């Protein structure tokens, strides 16, 4: 009994995407009307805000980088059915670790510092993820609440650092720590807003994630555990060990995102260093159907929405949260269409 060939799914998929797009546009237009805002102007403004110049496009890419890193990381935890809401805290801790490494006294070589910083961020993020994982496996605490609690802790920790030991000389402020020395900034092409290193790292992580998940034994084991944790015992696999491994990998990816936020974007530590990219990545992965194929392009889509709506307050006196509305709506529409289709198939 063979499964039906995929070609039958294509017109179905096209129809679904079309209805989804109509739903999203329709809902957004409705919201804009309620807010008494010019609908077409808003859409146009977002488009321009993201794509009108190379500087803007590169800014989109600078948002894309942490977003795709976190999304790739989440693929591991979703594969074993874990909801790693703690990813925000993992970004933050990665950033803190990165900053701490950059402040190591006595080392002069900037490249060396950056390398230390990179690995520190991986360690920081992975450790934070491990904590959530241990709370789950040893403490029986659902990863949503463990992760949430640790998000809050990370938030408190970074505030303490910014207003306490690492504060700017003179006045401590919400604008963060002192700017890093210029040689600790990752290089950016002129006129661009995204570091080349960032793009390289993100691209590599995407490829590595694809290889790791699809081509390696580890990826296969994760897949098996996600599908049937009971059966995996018969294949010599203990699910708990792999939960921890998966969440550590996600933490590591998030940590790298934190590293890049510090060294390539803000060049300092700010209270909102994670910028909500963790939660956003959860949405991206949900929309991508928990698979890597569409992840890069969907992350790009969400990133352009983010960047595109930055101008809204200035130009149209609208809150830039409009991007979040569109993003949330995309995911809910996708779920709605999927749910209706599944219900039809069942009856």
């Amino acid at each position, binding site marked *: *009994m*063979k*499964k039906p060939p995929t070609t039958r799914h294509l017109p179905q998929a096209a129809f679904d995407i079309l209805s989804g797009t109509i739903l999203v546009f329709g809902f957004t237009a409705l919201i804009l009307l309620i807010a008494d805002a010019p609908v077409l102007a808003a859409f146009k403004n977002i488009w321009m805000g993201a794509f009108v110049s190379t500087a803007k496009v590169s800014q989109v890419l600078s948002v894309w980088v942490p977003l795709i890193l976190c999304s790739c990381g989440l693929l591991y935890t979703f594969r074993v059915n874990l909801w790693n809401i703690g990813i925000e805290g993992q970004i933050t801790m990665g950033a803190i670790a990165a900053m701490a490494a950059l402040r190591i006294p006595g080392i002069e070589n900037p490249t060396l510092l950056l390398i230390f910083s990179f690995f520190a961020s991986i360690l920081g993020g992975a450790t934070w993820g491990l904590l959530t994982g241990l709370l789950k496996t040893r403490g029986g605490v659902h990863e949503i609440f463990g992760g949430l609690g640790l998000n809050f802790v990370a938030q408190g920790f970074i505030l303490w650092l910014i207003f306490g030991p690492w504060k700017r000389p003179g006045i401590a402020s919400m604008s963060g720590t002192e700017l890093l020395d210029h040689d600790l900034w990752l290089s950016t092409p002129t006129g661009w807003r995204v570091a080349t290193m960032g793009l390289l790292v993100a691209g590599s992580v995407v490829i590595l994630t694809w290889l790791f998940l699809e*081509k*390696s*034994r*580890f*990826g*296969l*084991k994760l*897949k*098996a555990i996600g*599908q*049937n944790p*009971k*059966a995996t*015992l*018969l*294949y*010599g*696999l*203990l699910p*708990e060990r792999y939960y921890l491994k998966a969440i550590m990998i996600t933490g590591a990816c998030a940590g790298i995102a934190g590293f890049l936020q510090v060294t390539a974007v803000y060049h300092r530590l700010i209270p909102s260093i994670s910028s909500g990219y963790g939660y956003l990545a959860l949405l991206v992965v949900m929309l991508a159907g928990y698979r890597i194929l569409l992840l890069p392009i969907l992350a790009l889509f969400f990133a352009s929405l983010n960047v595109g709506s930055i101008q809204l307050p200035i130009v149209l006196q609208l809150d830039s949260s409009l991007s979040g509305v569109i993003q949330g709506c995309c995911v809910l529409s996708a779920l709605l269409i999927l749910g209706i289709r599944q219900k039809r198939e069942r009856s």
Partner: protein
Amino acid sequence: MDVEFQHISKNFGSVNALTDVSLTANSGTIHGLIGENGAGKSTLMKILTGYQSKSGGTIVINGREARLNSPKEAAVLGIGMLYQEPMDFTPLTVLENFSLGNPERNRKKLRLSLQALASRFGFHLAPDRAVELLTVGERQQIELLRLIHCKTRLLILDEPTTGISPAQKKTLFPALKHLAADGITILLVSHKLEEVATLCSEVTVLRHGSVTHHTNAPFHFPELLKAMFGSVPKQKDKEAQRETGAQILQMQNVEASSERLGLKQCTVKCAEGEIIGLAGLDGAGQSTFLRLAAGLTIPDRGSVILFGKELPKNIKACLQSQRQQTSFIPADRLEEALFADISLTDHFNLKEKQHSFLGIRNNNRVQTEKAITTFSIKGEPDYAAGDLSGGNQQRLLLALLDPESRLVLLENPTRGLDIRSGQWVWDYLRNKLSPQTTILFSSPELDEILHFSDRILVFHNGLIVLDRAVTDTSHAAIAAAMTGMTE
């Protein structure tokens, strides 16, 4: 209420669960329905309670044809069932469980009814106690009282004495007789012949979906057993007894709780090369036994000693078991041993012991194709395991079995296989695996147990009631032991 099943049939696709079943149960009688596992008893009851539709035949209640399309319709007609697993609400109190579903709203009235009914039947139930603190027997009592209070006229009891104490049985039996005297019709589905004999005035026997026997009290047990399990088969060429070696598995005073009853006071030794058949009715303890040896179930008391080393009492037991070359194939293949959306090749990849350097998935495609041919699996290496039919899934599991295994544990190895496939499986197990491999298998088919085992363990109610070499026992003795009859 008079119930009459007229020529009831039920098929699930091409499988005939019930064929031309006719049965009459009259008001005020306790009618026993017996048969081995898979005989069709639960299907018949599901049809009567409206959970399943019938494929053919008629059900006549009090002279009129009844349409039983939903549980609600059945309940309205006055049909109630006491399930083996209590369908109740554990954190709620006795009174609350009793009241739910009852149109009566007044708490005081309900409390009084509960107490009146309880004392009438000799049950001692504290109305405000949480149900989860009660024993299975007590939970059953509440359910029984509730059904009576809801004016049930036809009461179906599914294995009512599972998990209740002898003292509670002493209270239950008179209560049931009381109910029958009040005019209620009772259908008693049970494995336990002695209890059936005590309670019922007539008995119908089902086997493989048809009625094989119907008789009134007094009952002759050998007659009933024959109808349940089939006649003693013609002596086929029995496989020669194998040479046995050193002891490889030992259970000392093991007590475990999984399944309904688990296992109690189990002390058994198994030797190298033995083929041991585990007989018993569903849930009697054979599955728990197999899982203890596989390390999947941890004993509450006692120890499991495998190849001289005690299995740890934590989740690592299954790893140690596998490291000592023990293999286990469960009966629920897709739910417990396979991955529905993973390809056959990848199943082999998962089993692979060697690791390639970078952890890259070895392409076991060639090995998979070989296995497909050797084991006659109807499928391609790229098929997902969920796409295979049940029989082919079993072949896949056998193909995945480590041929170097020293202990092979099988739960219903020929389940869902046609005769030829079944024979092939046993040929593989006996002739392709090393003669030093110990095989422990459970099966509902007595013929299979008798034919292939060197030694037989019969389980009943969580205890091993018979442990004999196959030459020292008989079909009749095993059947009797399975139903709890002491010799």
